[in-house]
């Protein structure tokens, strides 16, 4: 295995040696070439300077002087050969070459690198026309070679020092730089041996830092991954053990719907051990659906999860068991579905409980229905005689009576109305408690509602010498959406109580708007009186049903104690609350709030009130089975100026309508033979037939094309559902018993 350090150092050394060597050789060669030129030039110059002196010497034939001149000129050994030759002959006349050539210190191989060529120069020594000789000189390259060798050695020495320094520096850098890599390799090996906590210390070396960070990140991820895998493995083992030992029935089937695993719960439910169950077809475990003869579980497998069916398991040795089967896909490691997981739960107990609960609910509903029917019946049965009592008292009051008689009639009427109030309160509370009361959402004028309510108390207040005043703040809108009837009912209850419990003084009603305008309208109303007040310890009880501050109250002031309870429930239904402040003997203040909706539409144009038509005599049919009520209705209607025909059943009403012309029909609901609802539906059917031309109306009957006979319910069924039933059957209005002349007249005015 090669070492990066050795490789880098080796390559660096080789590169530097090659570069420096090549550079040095090139430089030396260049110097050598330059030296050649210098030597040649120097040789020429020396020779030129020597020739005049040599001429003098040779002219006089003084070779000794000539030799001295030449040796002096060549004292530095620049020429390795110095000779004077005969003219036109190679014969040497004088040889002044150095006895010892300049020693070459440069080695032969170095000289071989620098082939310095120094040609022989010849200078003719002449004084025209006599030629005295030829000076032949040959330069010596030794000095140059020695000098270049010295320079080369210096360069080589510097190179060696530089190289050594560089190698040391590179070695140190590599050692430091490779340390993290060695550490990385060592930690990687440790990681490979399973030491997952192995990490490499961070390094500041930018080239290695990312690798170290990546390794550490990888190691951390690996450690985390393996930890997660182990955790999951442990969880899987636990889960497998749980599933295996669970009493819940859990098993799997393959895509071929054959069982592939089977747990203890499955063994207990179906009675087969795992080895007997695995491979069994799923179909054999469950009963086919009763209707389709198809096994629901088989369909379940094809249903998108989560899917659940309830079916019947077929244990091997015990009776069928009702079960709930949940199914989810079983997915393999590659994400592909390899089967289904089925969880089967024995729902025998639940089924039994559901059955019992169903029975209990049915019993409760039956009881509720019985209660409602009882209340309806009671209401009906009480209102029927009360209708007679109040009706007759009303009729009687319209006759000339003595003072004593009138007082008796008033007592009868007051008692009847009190009884009626009791009945209404009980029915109201009952309906509220049963959840049968819903508040309406219609546009109305809250200011007008307040004014109308207080107007009803004007006469009563005057009789008792009480001042009833109201203040409606400017912010209260003229139009809002809510239930004006229920709002009036609340005000009536509170103002009625105030008037009732105030001997003298004032009753004040104030209404203001308290919402911020963001979410509908919230009104705050208060009813303040100067009455007897309520003890502080009773304040929290007064809104409970059948509760008054003092039981003696009802005896003294009358009432059922249901008014405030009903008020509280109604305010709650209208999104508000009710509370009271009171000082015993000083008076009470009842507050309530209600939430109303913003009126969206334009205020409907108020149609001009039609000119009051003078009451005309009408032919009125009254269908009523009760003799007393027949009498009361007849007397009241006749007293209003109408002619009245009375029948005792729905059938009788149909016959009468078919035989005579009536302007309006008062229809009782509870009647023998045919009740009022059936009679109304039949009458409307005939009208439709006539209108469609499929049935020709009899002459002198109430039916005629394009006419709808006004039908007003006249019933002791005072509950809302009864009113709705009447309207649904085709009636046009509704008057509940007990009735009085005013109510009848108003109803006729509304429909005719």
């Amino acid at each position, binding site marked *: 295995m090669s070492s990066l350090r050795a490789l880098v150092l080796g390559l660096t050394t080789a590169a530097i040696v090659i570069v420096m060597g090549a550079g040095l050789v090139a430089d030396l060669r260049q110097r050598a070439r330059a030296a050649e030129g210098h030597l040649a030039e120097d040789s020429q110059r020396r020779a030129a300077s020597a020739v005049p002196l040599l001429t003098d010497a040779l*002219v006089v034939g003084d070779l000794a002087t000539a030799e001295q001149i030449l040796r002096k000129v060549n004292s530095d050994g620049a020429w390795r050969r110095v000779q004077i030759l*005969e003219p036109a002959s190679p014969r040497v006349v004088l040889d002044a070459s150095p006895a010892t050539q300049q020693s070459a210190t440069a080695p032969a191989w170095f000289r071989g690198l620098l082939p310095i060529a120094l040609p022989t120069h010849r200078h003719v020594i002449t004084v025209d026309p*006599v030629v005295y000789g030829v000076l032949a000189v040959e330069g010596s390259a030794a000095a140059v070679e020695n000098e270049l060798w010295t320079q080369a050695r210096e360069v080589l020495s510097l190179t060696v020092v530089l190289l050594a320094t560089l190698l040391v520096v590179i070695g140190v850098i590599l050692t430091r730089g490779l340390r993290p890599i060695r550490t990385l390799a060592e930690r990687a090996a440790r990681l490979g041996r399973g030491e997952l906590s192995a990490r490499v210390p961070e390094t500041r070396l930018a080239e290695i830092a990312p690798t170290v960070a990546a390794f550490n990140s990888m190691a951390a991820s690996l450690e985390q991954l393996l930890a997660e895998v182990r955790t999951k493995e442990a969880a899987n083992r636990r889960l497998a053990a749980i599933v295996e030992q669970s009493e819940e029935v859990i098993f799997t089937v393959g895509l071929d719907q054959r069982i592939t695993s089977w747990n203890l719960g499955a063994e207990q439910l179906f009675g087969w051990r795992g080895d007997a169950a695995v491979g069994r077809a799923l179909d054999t475990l469950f009963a086919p659906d009763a209707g389709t003869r198809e096994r629901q579980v088989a369909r379940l497998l094809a249903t998108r999860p989560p899917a659940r069916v309830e079916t019947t398991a077929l244990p091997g040795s015990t009776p069928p068991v009702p079960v709930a089967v949940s199914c989810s896909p079983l997915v393999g490691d590659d994400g592909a579905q390899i089967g289904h997981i089925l969880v089967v739960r024995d729902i025998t107990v639940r089924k039994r409980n559901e059955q019992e609960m169903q029975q209990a609910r049915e019993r409760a509903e039956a009881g509720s229905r019985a209660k409602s029917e009882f209340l309806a019946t009671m209401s009906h049965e009480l209102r029927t005689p009360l209708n007679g009592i109040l009706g007759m008292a009303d009729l009687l009051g319209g006759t000339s009576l003595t003072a004593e008689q009138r007082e008796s009639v008033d007592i009868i009427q007051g008692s009847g109305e009190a009884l009626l109030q009791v009945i209404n309160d009980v029915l109201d509370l009952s309906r509220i408690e049963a959840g049968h009361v819903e508040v309406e959402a219609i546009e109305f004028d809250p200011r007008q509602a307040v004014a109308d309510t207080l107007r009803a108390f004007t006469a009563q207040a005057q009789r008792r010498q009480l001042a009833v005043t109201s203040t409606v703040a400017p912010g209260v809108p003229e139009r809002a959406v809510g239930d004006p009837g229920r709002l009036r009912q609340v005000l009536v209850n509170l103002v009625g109580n105030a008037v009732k419990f105030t001997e003298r003084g004032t009753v004040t009603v104030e209404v203001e708007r308290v919402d911020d305008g963001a979410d509908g309208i919230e009104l705050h109303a208060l009813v303040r009186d100067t009455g007897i007040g309520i003890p502080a310890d009773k304040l929290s009880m007064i809104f409970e049903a059948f509760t008054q501050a003092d039981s003696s109250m009802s005896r003294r002031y009358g009432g059922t104690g249901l008014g405030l309870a009903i008020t509280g429930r109604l305010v709650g239904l209208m999104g508000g609350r009710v509370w009271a402040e009171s000082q015993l003997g000083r008076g009470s203040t009842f507050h309530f709030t209600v939430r109303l909706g913003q009126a969206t539409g334009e205020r409907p144009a108020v149609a001009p009130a039609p000119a009051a038509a003078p009451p005309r005599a009408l032919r009125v049919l009254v269908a009523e089975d009760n003799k007393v009520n027949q009498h009361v209705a007849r007397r009241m209607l006749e007293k209003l100026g109408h002619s009245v025909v009375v029948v005792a059943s729905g059938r009788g009403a149909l016959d009468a309508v078919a035989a005579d012309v009536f302007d309006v029909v008062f229809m009782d609901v509870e009647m023998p033979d045919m009740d009022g609802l059936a009679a109304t539906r039949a009458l409307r059917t005939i009208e439709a037939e006539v209108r469609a031309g499929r049935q020709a109306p009899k002459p002198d009957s109430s039916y005629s094309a394009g006419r709808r006979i006004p039908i007003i319910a006249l019933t002791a069924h005072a509950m809302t559902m009864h009113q709705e039933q009447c309207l649904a059957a085709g009636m046009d209005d509704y008057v509940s018993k007990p009735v009085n002349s005013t109510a009848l007249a108003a109803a006729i005015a509304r429909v005719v």
Partner: protein
Amino acid sequence: MTTRRTAVTLLLLGAAVAVAPGVRAQTAPLTFGVLNQQSPSLTAERWNPILHHVSTASGVPLRLKMGRTVDETDDMMGRGELDFVFTNHNFQTEYNAIAFRVIARWGGEPIRGVIVVAADGPFTQLKDLAGKKVAFPSRDAFVAYAVPLVALKAAGVFVEEVMSGNQDGALAQLKARQVQAAAVNSRFLKQYSEREGVAFRQIYLSDPYPDLAVIAHPRLPAATVEAVRKALLGMKTDAAAAPVLERVKFPGFESATNQDYEGVRRIYRRIGQ
């Protein structure tokens, strides 16, 4: 030493062969000595062309031979190593025993001895040189030493004599201010001034004397001497010699005899030479 002498012989022989290829097979060249008035090379520059022409014209091969110094050349002359000599030292008494024959003299105006000082110097007459350094070519010089010295003595001026080897050296020392005056012949002064571009102040000019003579050794055959003499004298009229004379700036040789140099002998005798 033997080797060296042989080499010199060979060298000089080779030079002679190169000069006169036509006669080298018949006779060895005769030596023609020239008094050291200039450096050997300058001497050769002047005399090699002349000798080449004379050799050609006369059919007598001649080669220049001279010593390194005046004395060496005089010694050569005294030893009989020179066949012909261009000199006037032969008129000194010591050479009277050798009966040299004057066959020609250097042409042109007669030469005079001159003493010059620096042109910008303070000296204007011979008396100013009393006790001063005066350069002479050598004690063998006639016009440049003997004549000026006689004049100085006659003027009662005694100077410090500085021998410069030749006239070039004497003027070079004056030019370099190594001496206060120099004594040369008038013709050399002119040549030097022209060549070097330098002017001197002349404070003494002697009577005219004939220039150096070409003398022949008495051992030479008369015909040879005559042939050489004719060639020398014929240069003034020989068209082939014109380029040579032009090159060396020489008007040619004049006919002369020993009688023409009696005055010179007298001067030498006055100074004891």
